Structures are given as structure tokens and as C-alpha cells.
């Protein structure tokens, strides 16, 4: 049977892509070490844990999905996920390996659990997936991507959004989907996005570190308390675009209550509150 052996919450942002693509020197610079150093620790932790699959709960930024038909939840059931052209030409990464059979099982399980997701046999992933993922799951040179993924996109862009409670329940449903899969797979669930940022209007660039740190504390210690926040509250606390944090809430919902952070980092820099939090699960190897 498959089991969940860990979780990762990580910000996603084009800035992280620019830094990664600029090479080791920039990643390790004084400016970016506070973020990329901890990403290195998560990569090492993952290397020891050696999961077989990553389920990545993220949000698209109008790169695969558009307003003509915007899905609330969309699940990949493909064996390969190409990198989207976000308007500047696609980053030169090979397609990410998937696992269609596992994806279909998750689709059936979610629907059985009354999560009526959009099922995607083709899906191009954008920086919601591939801004944090190379830091923990990519070997430069011949190696390439290491761990097959199953992407799950959440609508955090076009209101009405699925409520924080709904996203938490999605995580619980992901947990059941993994545990009911017959194949013997170790799975890490990843949630990407946030933390505080405001990209529109006169408050452009507003970052709120106190709230971000409190969010990470609550996610670790009392995650269900976060399901009581409304989007109006989350927007006032962290900014219009910070509502992506519900992707972290889905990740945390897939973990056992006693999961605890093994790597934690927070770095407020320029226009982003960058967060990173890896959760270990009791009894998992590593």
C-alpha cells in the first residue's frame, strides 16, 4: 500500500526561477542564501527519504487554464507534464515525469470523496510547480527530474475560491487516496505558493512577516485553526495574492496531526514573504 512519508510547503515565484537559472553563484550569494540554503537542506532530507512520488498542490497563473473555463480543482493524470510558456518562452527544463495510473486512482478516490475535480490528460505546469521544484528534485546535467509528480491545481485566482476549510478537506481526501492505492509507494505531498505578497494597486510590494511566521506556526501546531479564516481576513493579513497559502493547508491536511517541521525557513525579501517548511512523519524512513 502507498503511504505519505512527508510534506513540503514552499513559496513559488518567478524571482526564484531567475535566481535558480542564474546559477550556483547567485543561489549561494548573501542575498539569496537565506532562501536557497534551506532549499538545499530540504533537498538533502528528500534524498534520504527517497519518496517514489510527489503530489504537488499548486495554482496555475493563467498559463494552462484561462477564464473561458476556470477549474476549481484540476488533477493531472498524465505520464508527462511539459513546462508552460508563460509569455517569455518556456524555461529549458525537460517535461516533468508523471504517473498516469496513480493520477487516475487519485481521481477516482477524490470523486468517491465528493471532490469532483477536472481531470487533465494534458497539463502544462507553470512556475506554481517549477519555481520551487528544481531546488529539491532536479539534478543538473544528465540527471534531470528525479521523482514523478501528480499535479493538483487549485483555483486561488478567480473568486469565488474554494474555502480554506475545503482545501483542508481536500488534503484529507488526498491522504485517503494515497492510503488506498495498492502499489507500494512512498509519497511526499507538496503545497506551493504565498506567503505574503501584494502585486496589485497602491499597496504593491507589501509584505507582512509577522503574519507569515504566525501562519507557519499555526500550520505546524494547530493547522485546523487556519480553516476558520475567511479570504477577506487572509487578504487583509497577507495581501490579495497571498491566498495561495491554502495550497499549504491542503498539503498539511494530507499529513498526520503529529507531523512536525524538520526544515523551516522564512525570508522576507523585496516584494515577497518567502516561506519553506518540510514536515517529517513519524515512522517514515530518514
Amino acid at each position, binding site marked *: 500500500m502507498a503511504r505519505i512519508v512527508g510534506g513540503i510547503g514552499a513559496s513559488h515565484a518567478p524571482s526564484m526561477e531567475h535566481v535558480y537559472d542564474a546559477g550556483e553563484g547567485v543561489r549561494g550569494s548573501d542575498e539569496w542564501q537565506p532562501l536557497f540554503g534551506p532549499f538545499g537542506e530540504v533537498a538533502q532530507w528528500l534524498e534520504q527519504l527517497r519518496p517514489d512520488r510527489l503530489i504537488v498542490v499548486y495554482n496555475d497563473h493563467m498559463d494552462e487554464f484561462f477564464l473561458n473555463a476556470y477549474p476549481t480543482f484540476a488533477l493531472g493524470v498524465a505520464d508527462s507534464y511539459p513546462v508552460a510558456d508563460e*509569455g517569455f518562452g518556456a524555461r529549458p527544463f525537460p517535461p516533468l515525469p508523471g504517473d498516469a495510473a496513480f493520477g487516475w486512482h487519485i481521481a477516482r478516490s477524490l470523486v468517491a470523496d465528493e471532490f469532483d475535480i477536472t481531470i487533465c490528460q494534458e497539463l502544462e505546469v507553470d512556475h506554481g510547480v517549477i519555481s520551487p521544484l528544481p531546488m529539491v528534485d532536479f539534478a543538473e546535467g544528465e540527471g534531470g527530474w528525479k521523482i514523478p509528480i501528480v499535479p493538483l491545481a487549485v483555483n486561488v485566482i478567480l473568486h469565488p475560491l474554494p474555502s480554506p476549510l475545503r482545501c483542508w478537506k481536500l488534503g484529507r481526501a488526498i491522504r485517503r487516496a494515497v492510503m488506498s492505492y495498492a502499489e507500494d509507494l512512498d509519497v511526499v505531498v507538496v503545497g506551493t505558493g504565498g506567503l505574503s505578497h501584494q502585486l496589485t*494597486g497602491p499597496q*504593491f510590494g507589501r509584505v507582512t512577516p509577522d503574519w507569515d511566521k504566525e501562519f507557519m506556526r499555526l500550520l505546524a501546531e494547530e493547522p485546523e485553526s487556519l480553516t476558520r479564516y475567511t*479570504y477577506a481576513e487572509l487578504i487583509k493579513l497577507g495581501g*490579495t495574492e497571498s491566498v495561495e497559502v491554502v495550497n499549504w493547508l491542503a498539503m498539511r491536511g494530507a499529513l498526520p496531526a503529529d507531523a512536525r517541521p524538520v526544515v523551516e525557513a522564512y525570508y522576507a525579501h523585496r516584494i515577497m514573504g518567502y516561506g519553506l517548511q518540510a514536515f517529517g512523519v513519524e515512522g517514515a524512513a530518514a
Partner: protein
Amino acid sequence: MSQTTTKELPDDYLRRLDAVQPRDLPPDLDLFDEHTATRGARLNKAAYSLKDEHQRTLFSTDEEAWMEQFGLTADERELVRRRDWIGLWRSGMSIYVMVKLSGVTDTPLPVIGKQMRESGGR
């Protein structure tokens, strides 16, 4: 909220219905919702097209012909011509397609941010 609790519309449902539409936000914390998506439908479709390399080439060679494809209003065209980012935002353009327009016009995000911050609300 004007509706009253009934057997079929119980209190907890009405609370959920109320919470699903964020309200009472400061006016400078905008939402992308029914109103924005409706107002910005043409502009969003136009900027979204820039995912396609051919559309980017057309934009660079003949911006007017590029705009013509999407039936932009005279005001919307003027906003694009002027690179009026705050105006585009107020007209309903999503930040996520605005980023694609920033790419094809070689506008770094900090330039957009500066305009946004200096706009002083709406």
C-alpha cells in the same frame, strides 16, 4: 445580508454564502471576481494571447493589428499604448496576464510596482 434563515436556508449556509465573497476590504486591496473578470474580459483575453510566440511577434511588429483581434475599446487600446499599468488594472486586467504584457513590452515588474504604488488608490 438580506436573506433570513429558513429551514432550507439555514444559518450555517447563509454564513458560508456570505464568506465566499470577500467584502469590506480596503479599496486598494482588489479582488479578481465577477466584476473584475467581466470588466476585463477583452483585455485579459488579449494579454493571455501573449503566451503564444506568434502573438508576441505580432505585438512587436504591429501593436495595432494585435489589438484589433480582440475588439478592445478605444479606451482600452489607449491604456495599452500608454503602458498604463494601473489603468489596465482598474480596467480589470489580471496581474497574471499583465505579467505577459510586461514581458513583450520589456517592462520590469518594479516599474509596474512603482506605478501601482504611486497611483494613490482609485
